[in-house]
């Protein structure tokens, strides 16, 4: 694995006298005390990370833990106080303004939580903005922008203005703008936090797809556990400006480094508070069984296109029929069998009014998100592991 982006002993102190604060940090005095004594804010403290080429690296942490500061240090939107940021082994904290601009124009792009689209430019010009700054001529940049817009499914809105689009569409434009430069590294600061959950899942899928197509390195900031577990190859957890743990979602889940990390995943007994219906999410991919044909191949295509391993089969009246996987579908297509034979028997739906306490072990042991049905066998939604953990975590923090 090649290291694309490396951060070595990086510090950021906000204020007039960073040196003073650095010295105090060396003595082991903590962030709050330094602020009380000197008025200097420690944004990031001694962060060291190595981010691999082609991975989605998620940075998580509570509000104020320094996530935004860290990600802005990576493209020097914020000047580091001390330490190194290496892109392909090249220290960008040492380069001059011109070189920094070139790096920003060609190697590293950013997507913002607030979208930050130019209100006076239409979608096409917004998308082409990065290339415009690089001095690419109109025709070429518009062509590339159109390509990027096509990737996010917004070609038809090229001539609209940002304020005519929904939040989700605006963020697609933000994503397309970042992709137009064809950067190696994509920085995303809570890029999807302003979107509603359904759109958010959709955007996450889209990001994962775009990332896998071009093997881009993505640094994704999030404070949402569900999101982090869903898309992250590795997760870094920040606390008070420090990176306290880095690892795969599983690592962190199983061996939390300290109580702070544990608290992200900590659950309390909520068995009697919520039932399955309350937390079931409808965002999963459902396949509708039609009377006329089996639709095996289209089903498989749908799953593959959305990069899902499992599909939830319902009929036209929303009755739940079962779960199929890409593998089971491929098998029955090969053996010329019917859809009902593709259904995986192991995965049984749970009733909508089952309490959460009773579903934890079912969800934990299921290979995929567990379907939930109501008393008329109608499909309600699914509960994924991340979804369940998030609920437990929210419950814990109330």
């Amino acid at each position, binding site marked *: 694995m090649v290291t694309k982006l490396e951060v070595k002993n990086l510090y950021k102190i906000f204020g007039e006298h960073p040196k003073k604060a650095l010295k105090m940090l060396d003595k082991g005095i903590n962030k709050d005390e330094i602020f009380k004594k000197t008025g200097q804010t420690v944004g990031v403290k001694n962060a060291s990370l190595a981010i691999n080429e082609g991975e989605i690296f998620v940075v998580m942490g509570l509000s104020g833990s320094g996530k935004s500061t860290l990600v802005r240090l990576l493209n020097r*939107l914020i000047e580091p106080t001390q330490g190194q940021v290496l892109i392909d082994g090249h220290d960008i904290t040492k380069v001059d303004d011109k070189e920094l601009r070139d790096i920003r124009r060609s190697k590293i*792009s950013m997507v913002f939580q607030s979208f930050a*689209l*130019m*209100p*006076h430019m239409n979608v096409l010009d917004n998308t082409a*903005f990065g290339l415009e700054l690089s001095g690419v001529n109109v025709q070429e940049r518009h062509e590339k922008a159109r390509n990027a817009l096509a990737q996010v499914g917004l070609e038809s809105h090229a001539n609209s203005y940002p304020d005519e689009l929904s939040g989700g569409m605006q963020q697609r434009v933000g994503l397309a703008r970042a992709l137009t430069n064809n950067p190696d590294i994509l920085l995303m600061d809570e890029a999807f936090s302003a979107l509603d959950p359904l759109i958010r899942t959709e955007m996450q899928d889209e990001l994962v797809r775009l990332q896998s197509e071009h093997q881009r390195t993505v640094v994704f900031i999030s404070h949402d556990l569900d999101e982090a577990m869903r898309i992250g190859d590795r997760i870094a957890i920040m606390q008070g400006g420090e990176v306290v743990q880095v690892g795969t979602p599983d690592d962190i889940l199983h061996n939390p480094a300290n109580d702070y990390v544990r608290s992200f995943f900590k659950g309390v007994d909520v068995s009697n508070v919520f039932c399955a219906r309350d937390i079931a999410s409808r965002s999963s991919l459902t396949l509708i069984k039609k009377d006329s044909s089996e639709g095996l191949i289209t089903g498989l295509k749908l799953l593959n296109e959305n990069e899902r391993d499992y599909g939830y089969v319902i009929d036209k009246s929303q009755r739940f029929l079962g779960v199929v996987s890409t593998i089971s579908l491929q098998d029955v297509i090969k053996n010329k069998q019917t859809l009902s034979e593709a259904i995986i028997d192991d995965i049984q739906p749970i009733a909508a009014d089952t309490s959460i306490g009773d579903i934890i072990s079912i969800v934990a042991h299921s290979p995929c998100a567990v379907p939930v049905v109501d008393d008329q066998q109608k499909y309600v939604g699914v509960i994924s592991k991340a979804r369940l953990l998030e609920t437990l975590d929210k419950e814990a923090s109330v």
Partner: protein
Amino acid sequence: MSTESNPWATASDDTGAAESTASNPWGGAASTQNSDAMSMSASGTPVEQTDFSLLHPFQDVWIPLDSWIETGVSWVVTNFRPFFTAVKAPVDATLTAVDSTFNAAPPLLVIALFGLIAWQLSGRRLAIGSVVGLITLGAIGAWQESMTTLALVVTSVLFCIVLGIPTGIAMARSDRAAKVIRPILDIMQTTPAFVYLVPIVMLFGIGNVPGVIVTIIFAVAPVIRLTNLGIRQVPSDLIEAANSFGADKKQMLFKVQLPLAMPTIMAGVNQTLMLGLSMVVIASMISVGGLGLMVLRGIGRLDIGLATIGGIGIVILAVILDRMTQSLGQDARQRGTRHWYETGPIGLLLAFKK
């Protein structure tokens, strides 16, 4: 200076002889203008030698400010004459060009042009309003003066924009510059218009060119302030986004800050224009021509008719110019279109060509 262009000549003839210099506020000015602009303070209190008494402590002047200023100004005038001439030259040239264009053009052409511009900037209603207004101006016999006033205002505003927008940008870019410039603007804006006239007359003399200079000084503040404000108000996340895509300073200014600040800057231009118009009128006291002079002469001669015509002319001009520039400050969105060239006569022309 001829009696013809001196509004006070008649006034002092009527009242001057009988009254003392002290009770006639114009006496000093009039005599100054007639003799030499430099002896403004000739009517100042004579310093007499009397014993100091606590009952009348200010009988004697403690600080002879007037004579200090007199010597100071005459020193400045003699030593910096090339500077003042250099300042006057571009103003003079522009004013002459604009003025002769407005005055030489056939009135109907000017009216048609105004109508078209108003249509383009705002809409058909303002276009009709402007045409009717301008025809009224001509009909009541104030055409010549209106064009002079218009030329003065247009020249002043041109200079205000040329000087003001870069100054505003400098203020927005550097807090140090802002700190230095802001108090100067405060002084320029809080000093009553009337007071400006004195130093300008001393330094530049009287007539249209000093009138334009005084107007520029009086009216430039809003466009500077609002340019600064507009640029500083550009949302920081947009600045950050532009930076993250590698914008340099020039690109930041021209592609992000100025376009987004434009409505605010245009609101500044509108304010500057309005202040300019009022100053051009007041500046008639230093013998600047146009509608203001009409009013002034009307008052001086107790000719209510003349003064009213001048007044109406000023109001009509003010309304037309105000409406035209106000629509510049509006977001295109509010007017229902994205680009100025999609509406008005040009939009019509383009649509026709297609």
